[in-house]
């Protein structure tokens, strides 16, 4: 009798053990496949990847009337850099180019010779990473350059736009994907926000560029001194840039730039010019529904200059003139525009130079810290000017810490300090370090700005028209 009960107990326990041992335990919380972080500004990643992708939204490159474009690819390692570049244009034509960049060198793709178009972009994929890619707009009215995007996004923002006196403000939608992207475009002109039906459901074919000229007749935004734009993709992701041609209204020249892939609460500028011959304004766009107060703080000067908070109503774009800051001395300066209401604005600086009658306008998006708060101590310049250039780099030291900073030129044997630019004392937060690239070793090369502090590095490179400059950021490492 006891044995019978024992057997029963064994059977029951066996069943329980069987169920228990074969039961799959699944996590109660949602598993993470990939941690999502908001897009950052173009950066040189040190991540161990099998391919590194750069997306150049596009520059005018018809090859006619001195309207040319180029893609610059720099190899920041001693090993050959292999990859492919898919050149795309506004007619949805593609050209595939194999890339082989020798160690510590730079190569250039001539866009108008490869695949001419009213707007030509590129998708550059580099095996194993370790490259730098930027696009150059080469135009008789002035050259400009901007780093290509390292992220795609479903939303993009541009604070500045200008269509006065026939100026062209072209929004460049580049689709690097192999399927059509559908996007909508809204713009704000001062106090008015508009979302025309004609800009809703815009299709951008696979691997192509689509150009929306907001200054064109019938486009709905002619003669606007302020024209902020947001682009949102309802299906897929894309890369957005802007090509501006200024023909009057106080602005002249051309500029090709990348839009901001995300809103932020702090926008930094390192190379402000508040002196004779320069006219600046900061354009602040708040595409959210809520009003935002933005504080402008001017740094890199003796003391700190501030203003009353700048009110930017929801959906509106506001311009701020630094001349209104009485404490701002006539010098180079850095600035930060910040709000306490979280990521809600995008800020651009418009600089118009008037040097002995030669006028050139350059628009530059502010820099942001990485979403995790990281600021780079090493910045890269894919290709320095082809001629000695004074005041080519403006460096602001974010940390109030002593140290040294070096500018290295990358040659066939690797990075070497540029004579006179090695181990320079880090500028205190009360000044901006201005670097001249006049040594022959610094001409026409990839450059590395290196320090153990956190810095911002702004480029001021010649436009090709007298000594006017095009402004853009170097590429942070991180």
């Amino acid at each position, binding site marked *: *009798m006891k044995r019978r009960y024992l057997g029963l107990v064994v059977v029951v326990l066996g069943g329980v053990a069987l*169920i228990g041992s074969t039961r799959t335990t699944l996590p109660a919380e*949602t598993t993470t496949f*990939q*941690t999502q972080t908001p897009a950052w500004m173009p950066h040189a990643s040190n991540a161990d990847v*099998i*391919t590194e992708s750069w997306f150049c939204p596009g520059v005018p490159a018809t090859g006619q009337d001195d309207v040319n474009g180029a893609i610059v690819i720099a190899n920041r390692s001693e090993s050959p850099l292999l990859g492919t570049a898919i050149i795309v244009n506004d007619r949805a034509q593609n050209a595939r180019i194999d890339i082989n960049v020798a160690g510590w060198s730079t190569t250039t793709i001539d866009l108008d010779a490869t695949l001419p178009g009213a707007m030509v972009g590129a998708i550059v994929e580099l*095996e194993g990473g370790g490259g730098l890619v930027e696009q150059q707009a080469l135009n008789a009215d002035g050259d400009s350059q901007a780093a290509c995007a390292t992220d795609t996004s479903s939303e993009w923002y541009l604070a500045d736009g200008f269509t006065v006196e026939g100026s062209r403000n072209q929004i460049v939608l580049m689709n690097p994907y192999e399927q059509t992207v559908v996007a909508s475009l809204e713009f704000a002109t001062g106090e008015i926000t508009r979302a025309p039906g004609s800009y809703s459901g815009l299709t951008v074919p696979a691997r192509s560029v689509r150009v929306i000229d907001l200054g064109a007749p019938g486009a709905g935004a002619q003669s606007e001194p302020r024209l902020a734009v947001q682009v949102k993709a309802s299906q897929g992701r894309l890369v957005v840039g802007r090509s501006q041609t200024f023909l009057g209204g106080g602005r002249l020249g051309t500029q090709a730039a990348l839009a901001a892939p995300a809103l932020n609460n702090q926008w930094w500028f390192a190379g402000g010019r508040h002196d004779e011959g320069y006219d600046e304004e900061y354009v602040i766009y708040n595409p959210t529904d809520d009003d935002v107060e933005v504080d402008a703080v001017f740094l890199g000067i003796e003391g700190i200059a501030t203003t009353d908070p700048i009110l930017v109503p929801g959906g509106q774009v506001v311009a701020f003139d630094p001349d209104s800051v009485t404490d701002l001395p006539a010098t180079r300066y850095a600035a930060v525009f910040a709000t306490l209401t979280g990521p809600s604005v995008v800020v651009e600086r418009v600089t118009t130079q008037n040097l002995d009658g030669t006028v050139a306008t350059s628009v530059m998006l502010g820099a942001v810290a990485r979403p995790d708060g990281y600021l780079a101590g090493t910045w890269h310049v894919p290709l320095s000017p082809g001629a000695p250039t004074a005041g080519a780099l403006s460096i602001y030291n974010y940390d109030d810490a002593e140290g040294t900073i070096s500018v290295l030129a990358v040659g066939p044997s690797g990075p070497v300090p540029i004579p006179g630019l090695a181990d320079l004392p880090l500028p205190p937060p009360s000044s901006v370090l201005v670097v001249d690239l006049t040594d022959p070793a610094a001409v026409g090369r990839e450059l590395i700005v290196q320090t153990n502090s956190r810095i911002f590095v702004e480029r001021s490179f010649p436009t090709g028209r007298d000594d006017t400059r095009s402004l853009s950021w170097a590429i942070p490492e991180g």
Partner: protein
Amino acid sequence: MLAVPVALGLALSAGALAGGFGSDVLARGFGWRQPTALVANVALVLGLAPAVLAIGDGGWHVDRTPLARLASTQFSADPSDGDYRVLYIGDPRVLPVPGHEYAPGIGYVVTDSGGFDFTHRFALTNTSADDAVERAIGLIANGSTLRAGRLLAPLGVRFVVVPLTDGANSTVRDPIDEPAGIVSALRGQLDLGDYQGHPSLEMFINRAWFPVGAQLTGATAEASAEAGDEVLVQADLSGAVASMVGIDRGQSVPYEVLPGTVHIAIPFDERFSLDVGDSVVEPRPGFGVTTAFDVANPGVGDIMYERDSTRTWWLTVQVLLWIVVLVLASGARYPFARRRTANLIDETLIDLDETSAAPAMIAGEALSGSGWTDAFGDDTDDDGYDDGYDDGYDDWLHGDPDDGAEFALPAFENESGESDELARLAMPSDDRDDDDDQRGGQS
């Protein structure tokens, strides 16, 4: 998962029923056990009622279009396009068929096009192709490439699907969240496009896909000779057209092949060969994982597979082993075994020559007889047998050789000297039948 314990429970129930019938009804008399069993069986039937109602039309109230059925409509096979496969990735609970684990809470499985049947319920062993899929998933997860489509293309993966609801484990009302960031990560891939379909599935189409059986030419053929993910993500895969359609379902027919490479998205196996006219093309690894054939001259090609010569022998051994298992499970015994058992019992348990042997009577009469001597103490279960007899009898009846050897029937006595009933039970069944016949004749 519960099939094993359920089957075990059913087997135990069946065994207990048969055993109980043999021991309680045939071997003993009518007692409280029989009505109890009857009540239990009635209760069993009543207990089944809710289950029967729950079954309904057989769907167990599962969604009318569960994932497995839905998938068959979304990914139908179109021979003109060539064979393709579907990669499902997501929470393992919502995968349409059992898959592999990529990480805790994240599973994946690669299926052929078309619908599912019961064979898809069997989990498959890992192959080098699964390793390649897992590597591709890992590269997507850590953001190492935006060209996952190219990594999956040589494996014939045309669609990547993240199941959100399956109508059973995950429903619209009570969905299981997909692994965080998986849809965004897939959407960021340059060669995976959104594919519109049922809202319970996030579907992506692989724009770099080429068929499971494909004719490769130009740069694509050259790329297939190389291995490594870093090579594959840079490869130009545009030079591929469908070939050997049906190879994925084992229905390959001879196909026109051209100079270049014939690719089949099956893990490399040297037993494959490609017959083109009078020549046989040996295989080589394609993209480091699959099977490829370099074709020099055009012709009609036929994929052949040479079976392992020992396979037939192994199958034969397997069949024999099954036969042995079935024989053992059926309880069949050799005649000499029966004789030994009968002789053993006859010799050790009962002495039929004793003069006190009782006249034959049926079990019920024996149990109701008034002349039994209470030689074993209490009968706690009130079945007419003392407890000691119950234990010993059970051991003997169900075969416990050790204990059975120690068991000896008591020297029963009654008023009429009746003691042969137990002896009759101890007889071999044949003998017992004879005995019953004789008794029936007497009555």
